[in-house]
C-alpha cells in the first residue's frame, strides 16, 4: 500500500511511517487527508500478525509535524462539526495507542499541536538533540484546546502540574527539557534516530524514580488536586483578566474528566473543543494567526542578501535597543555617538536587554559577553564602510537628522541601506538630504526594542522597491513583525494612537476621572489604561506628537490643553516619577497623582464604561479609515497587525478593524455622527471611506 502524505514501509516487521513526503513547504501540517491515510495504514498494521513495531518519523529536517492545518480549524462552522472532527482524529490516534506492538515517534524539529498529540499516542517518544527540536501544545493561543487526545495523554505521561503549564500557556520545550519532564524517553543525534529507534523501540526501561512516583501520587490525591486547580485558575485570571475563555475551559475539562475512562475523557475534550472553536475570541485569534503568517511571507526572500554588519547612529535608549537587536542577530553593530555618555547609555540599554535574557536562562553568560562585546562603541566613522544597514537614532530634529545623513553618506559604501528611526518627522523631507535617496527609508521601532515586536518600514517617494524588500527581510531576520507604510504624520501606529490618547485627555477635561477612564480601557482589553499609557510614553512626548498631528492633519487632530498644562507643572510621566500617577524610585506606580487631579475639573461627571470606551476607540477607527483612504497602508489587515503588535490592541478582538467589522459599521457611523453633534464636529468628522463602506454595505475586510 502507498500513500500520498507519508512514506509507508515494512522493514523486517517494523513499520516505518515517514511524514513530509512530497512536501514542498518547510513545515508539514496534518490535513484531513493525512488522518484518513493514517487510519488506513494503521488498520493494515494491526491486521498484520507478523508486525513487530511502528516508527513514525519525518523526511523534512527541522520539522516532525507542525500540527493541524489552522485553515481546517478556521473552516469549522459549528461546534458539532468541530467536535466530530476531533472524534475522527481521536479515533485514529487511539488506533496507535491500541496497537499490540510498540510504537515510537522519532521527533527531529518542530513537533506541535496535533503533531505532539500523535507522538503522545505512541508508546515512546525519541527526540533529536537539534536546537530546532521543540515540543508543545499551542492550541490555547488559538483560543481552543488540543482536540486529538492531548489533554488526556499529556497529564498521563508527565503529570498534572507540568501539563497545566504546557496546556495553559502553549509554551514549547526543547529536547533536554522534554526529557527531564518525562515527555520524551530518549534524546539522540538526528542522524542516529532511525537506526537506534528500531533498537530502542523494544528496550525495557527502568521504573520511575521514587520522587517521580511520589509527585504523581500527590497530584492524584483529590485534595492536592483541588489546590492545584484553584491556584491555576487564579493565575489564569490574573494573566488573561478573563478575556480569554480557552484556558478556563481547559481547567474545567481537566478537573471534570480527571481519572475518567479514555472514551468519556475524549468525549469531554471533543465537546470542549467544539464549544471553544466557535467563540469570537478563538475566531479572532485565528485571524491574528493568519495576519502574522501572512506578514512572514516575502517574494524572493531567499535571493535577497542578508545584512552582515549593522551600524547605529546615536546611543541612548532607542539606539542602544537597536544595537542590542543587531548584536543579538550576529550583526556586530558599530554604535556611534558624539560623546562617551551617549555611548554608555546605549550600551547600558543593550546590556539590560541581554541581562534579562540571561536571567530567564535564554542566554548563557558567555553569549552575553560575546554579543554585547560585538557592539563597537565609537566616536568617529572609522569602519562605517563595512556596514550593510545603518539605522539613525539621533535627536528628533529635522535639521540635525538631515545634517547627519548628508555627512554619513560620505562614509558608507554605496550599497549600505540608510534608515531613520524617526517617529514623528517626515521621511520624504529627510530623503532630500541624501544623494542616493533610493536606498533610504524610515524604520520605526517601538520602545523598548527588545520587547516590542513591531517595526514600521516607512516609504517615501524616491525609495526603491529593492530597499523596501531588503529592509522587510532584515526585520524578519531579527524576529520582528514588519509592516510597510507610506509617509504621513505619525505613520500608521502613532497616527491611530494619537486620537485615542487625545480623546482620553478631552474626557479628563470634561470631568471623567483618571480611574474611570483607565478602568474602562482595561476592561476593553487594552494592556494598560489611557492615562497610564500617556505616563509611559511621556506626557511631553504626547504634547509634541499632538502638535505634529494637529499641524499635519488639521482641526480633527486639535490637541487637548490638559497635557500641555501637565507638562507646565513638570508632570512628564513615569520617567520623572510623576504624571497622572506617582511612581517610586524603581518606577513602580504608587497611585493617582494629586497634582494631576488638581488640573482636572473639580466637578466630576460619571460616564458609562461603554461610553468611555466608544469615545476613545471610535476616533481610532475613523482615523484608520482615513489612513486606508489615503493609501498609507495597503489593507485593513496591515492596520490590525500594526495595532496589535504596536500598541497591544487586544488580540481576542482580532484587531481594530476586525473589531469594527464585527460590531457593525453602520452602528459606528451612527455613533460618529452623534458625537459630531454632541461632542465636537471636528474631532468626529466622519471619514468618507467609512461612510462609503456603509453605503455599499461592505466591511473593512471586504473592501
Amino acid at each position: 500500500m502507498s500513500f500520498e502524505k507519508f512514506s509507508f514501509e515494512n522493514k523486517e516487521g517494523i513499520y516505518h511511517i515517514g511524514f513530509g513526503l512530497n512536501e514542498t513547504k518547510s513545515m508539514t501540517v496534518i490535513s484531513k487527508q493525512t488522518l484518513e491515510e493514517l487510519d488506513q495504514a494503521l488498520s493494515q498494521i494491526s491486521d498484520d500478525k507478523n508486525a513487530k513495531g511502528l516508527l513514525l518519523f519525518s523526511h523534512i529536517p527541522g520539522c516532525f509535524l507542525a500540527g493541524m492545518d489552522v485553515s481546517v480549524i478556521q473552516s469549522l462552522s459549528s461546534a458539532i462539526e468541530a467536535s466530530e472532527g476531533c472524534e475522527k482524529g481521536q479515533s485514529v490516534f487511539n488506533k496507535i495507542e491500541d496497537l499490540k506492538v510498540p510504537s515510537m515517534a522519532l521527533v527531529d524539529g518542530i513537533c506541535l499541536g496535533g503533531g505532539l498529540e500523535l507522538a503522545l499516542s505512541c508508546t515512546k517518544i525519541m527526540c533529536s538533540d537539534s536546537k530546532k527540536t521543540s515540543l508543545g501544545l499551542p492550541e490555547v493561543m488559538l483560543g481552543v484546546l488540543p482536540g486529538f487526545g492531548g489533554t488526556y495523554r499529556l497529564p498521563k505521561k508527565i503529570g498534572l502540574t507540568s501539563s497545566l503549564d504546557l496546556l495553559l500557556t502553549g509554551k514549547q520545550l526543547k529536547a533536554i527539557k522534554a526529557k527531564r519532564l518525562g515527555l520524551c524517553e530518549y534524546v539522540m543525534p538526528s542522524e542516529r534516530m532511525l537506526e537506534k529507534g528500531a533498537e530502542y523501540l523494544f528496550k525495557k526501561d527502568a521504573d520511575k524514580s521514587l520522587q517521580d512516583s511520589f509527585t504523581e501520587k500527590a497530584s492524584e490525591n483529590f485534595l492536592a488536586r483541588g489546590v492545584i486547580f484553584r491556584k491555576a485558575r487564579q493565575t489564569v485570571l490574573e494573566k488573561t483578566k478573563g478575556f480569554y475563555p480557552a484556558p478556563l475551559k481547559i481547567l474545567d475539562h481537566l478537573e471534570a474528566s480527571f481519572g475518567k475512562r479514555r472514551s468519556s475523557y475524549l468525549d469531554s475534550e471533543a465537546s470542549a473543543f467544539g464549544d471553544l472553536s466557535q467563540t469570537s475570541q478563538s475566531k479572532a485569534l485565528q485571524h491574528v494567526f493568519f495576519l502574522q503568517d501572512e506578514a512572514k511571507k516575502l517574494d524572493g526572500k531567499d535571493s535577497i542578501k542578508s545584512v552582515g554588519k549593522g551600524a547605529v547612529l546615536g546611543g541612548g535608549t532607542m539606539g542602544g535597543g537597536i544595537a542590542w537587536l543587531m548584536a543579538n542577530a550576529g550583526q556586530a553593530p558599530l554604535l556611534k555617538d558624539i560623546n562617551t555618555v551617549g555611548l554608555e547609555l546605549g550600551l547600558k540599554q543593550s546590556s539590560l536587554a541581554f541581562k534579562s535574557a540571561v536571567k530567564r536562562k535564554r542566554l548563557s553568560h558567555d553569549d552575553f559577553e560575546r554579543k554585547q562585546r560585538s557592539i563597537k562603541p565609537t566616536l568617529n566613522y572609522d569602519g562605517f564602510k563595512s556596514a550593510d544597514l545603518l539605522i539613525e537614532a539621533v535627536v528628533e530634529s529635522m535639521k540635525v537628522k538631515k545634517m547627519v545623513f548628508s555627512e554619513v553618506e560620505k562614509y558608507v559604501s554605496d550599497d549600505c541601506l540608510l534608515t531613520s528611526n524617526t517617529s514623528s518627522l517626515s521621511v520624504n523631507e529627510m530623503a532630500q538630504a541624501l544623494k542616493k535617496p533610493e536606498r533610504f527609508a524610515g524604520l520605526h521601532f517601538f520602545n523598548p526594542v527588545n520587547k516590542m515586536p513591531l517595526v514600521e518600514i516607512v516609504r517615501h517617494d524616491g525609495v526603491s522597491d529593492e530597499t523596501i524588500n531588503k529592509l522587510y527581510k532584515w526585520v524578519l531576520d531579527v524576529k520582528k513583525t514588519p509592516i510597510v507604510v507610506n509617509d504621513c504624520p505619525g505613520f500608521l501606529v502613532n497616527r491611530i494612537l494619537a486620537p485615542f490618547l487625545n480623546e482620553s485627555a478631552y474626557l479628563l477635561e470634561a470631568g471623567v476621572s483618571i480611574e474611570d477612564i483607565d478602568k474602562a480601557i482595561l476592561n476593553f482589553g487594552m494592556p494598560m489604561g489611557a492615562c497610564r499609557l500617556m505616563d509611559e510614553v511621556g506626557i511631553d512626548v504626547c504634547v509634541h506628537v499632538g502638535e505634529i498631528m494637529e499641524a499635519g492633519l488639521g482641526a480633527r487632530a486639535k490637541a487637548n490643553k490638559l497635557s500641555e498644562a501637565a507638562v507646565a507643572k513638570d508632570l512628564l510621566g513615569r520617567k520623572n516619577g510623576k504624571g497622572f500617577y506617582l511612581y517610586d524610585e524603581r518606577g513602580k506606580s504608587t497611585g493617582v497623582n494629586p497634582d494631576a487631579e488638581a488640573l482636572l475639573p473639580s466637578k466630576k461627571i460619571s460616564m458609562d464604561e461603554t461610553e468611555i470606551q466608544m469615545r476613545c476607540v471610535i476616533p481610532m477607527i475613523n482615523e484608520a479609515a482615513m489612513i486606508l483612504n489615503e493609501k498609507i497602508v495597503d489593507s485593513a489587515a496591515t492596520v490590525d497587525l500594526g495595532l496589535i503588535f504596536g500598541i497591544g490592541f487586544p488580540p481576542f478582538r482580532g484587531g481594530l478593524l476586525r473589531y469594527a467589522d464585527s460590531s457593525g459599521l453602520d452602528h459606528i457611523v451612527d455613533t460618529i455622527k452623534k458625537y459630531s453633534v454632541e461632542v465636537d464636529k471636528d474631532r468626529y468628522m466622519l471619514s468618507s471611506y467609512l461612510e462609503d463602506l456603509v453605503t455599499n454595505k461592505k466591511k473593512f475586510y471586504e473592501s
Partner: protein
Amino acid sequence: MQPVYLVNGKRSPQAKSGTIFKDIPAPYLGDYLIRDMVESSGIASDDVDEVIIGCVGNPAKYPNIGRVIALEAGLDQRTSGYTVHRNCASGMEALSQAFLKVGSGRSDIIFAGGVENMSQAPLIYSDEMTDFFMQLMKAKNPKNKLKAVSGFRLPHLSPIIALEQGLTDPFCGLNMGQTAEKIAREFGFTRTQQDEYANESHRKAITAINEGRFREEIVPIIAGEKLDKVISSDFGPRGDSSVEKLAKLKPYFEKRTGTVTVGNACPITDGGSMWMVCSEAAVKKYNLEPMARMIDYHFHGLEPERMGLGPVLAMDGIFKRTGLKLADMDLVEINEAFAAQVMGCLKVMREKDLAARWGVDVLGAMDMSKLNVNGGAISLGHPVGSTGSRLVVTLAHELEKRKAKYGVASLCIGGGQGGAMIIENLKV
C-alpha cells in the same frame, strides 16, 4: 625576503591587574582590535591567512587563544590561528613569525599581536592535593576510598600562585624582581636613581595622555560588570607621582637590603595589542596605506639571572644583521620591566668593558630624548603576552607623528633572553 608591511597597529588601553579589566576574558582584549582593523581596511573576513597571538598565561578555558581570537573577531572559520609563547616577548614573537611568513611569500595578510589578562592568572592546587584527587578517583571500593581520604592534610589546600611561579626562573631560582636587584647591586644603582627613573616614566606617560598621543593607537574597549562602560585611556600612569612618594615604598623582593620596589618596577597589567601584517601584493590588492615596514628582528639569549640586560644583546644582534646603528634610530623603546634593568642596559650599551663582558659592540650613549618618549611599562604597565607587539604599536604611531624614519623596540625576556625589532615609518 619580500618587504613586510605593518599596515595598521592598535592596542587596548592597559589597566593595572585587579582593576577595571579584571573580568574581561583574555580573548576579548584582542578580538575587537582585529575587528576594528578589518572594518577600516575594507578587507573581507575570509581574506586573512592567519592569526598569531602571544600569550604567556594562556587561560585554561581557551587552550589555543590565537584560534579563539580569530573566531571571536568574526573572521572566516577557515582562518588558521595559533598561539606563541616567548615569555615577555610573546607579542614580538608573534610579529616575528608573521614577518617570516609574509616575507617568504607564504602569507599575504596576518594578524599578529598579544593579549594578557594577568588579573585572571589562576591559583593552582599543590602536587600533594592533585595526587590526593587522583587517588580518590582511582579508589573503587569503600576501603580504598577511606584510605585515600585519610591521606588528606590541611596544608595540601594552600594554593600555588601561578603568576608568582611563572615569574620565577626555574634555573637560577630568582624571581624577576630579584634579577633586577642583582643588576642594581652589581652596577651600583641606588634606590633614588631608580625612583627618579620611574618618576620620569610616569611624567612622560601622563604628558602623552594629556596631549592625546595615544588616541590613534588605542581602540576603546567595553568594560564594567554590566559591560556598559567605554574605556579609552590607560589605567596606571600616575599624575601625582613624585620621587618623594616613591621613596616611601618598601623594597618588595629583598625586604631588608633591596632597592627594587613596586614603584620602580612595572605593575602586572591587563591589555592587548595587534598588528595587521601584509605583503606587497595585499597592500596593492586592497589599496592599503601601510604605516611602516618591518625591517627585521632578533632574539638573543644570556644568563637567566641577568635577563634584564637582554635588550642590549638583541639590539647588538639586529644592528649587525641590518647594518643599521643606534645613531640611525630616531626612537628607541627599551621595555621598562624594572628601572634598574633599563639603567643596566644603558650602561652596557655605552661602556666598553661591560660590552666586552657580554660580547657585544659598544652601541653608544643613549640620547635620552629618543628613549621611551611616551613612558614605558613602569607607568603604562606590562601585560606580558602583549608588550612585545604593544611596544611596536606605540613606536610606529610615534614615528608617524614625528615623521621620523627608524625606530627600534626591544625588551628583556624572563628566562634570560632579549628581543628587538626595527621598523621604518612609511608615513613621512
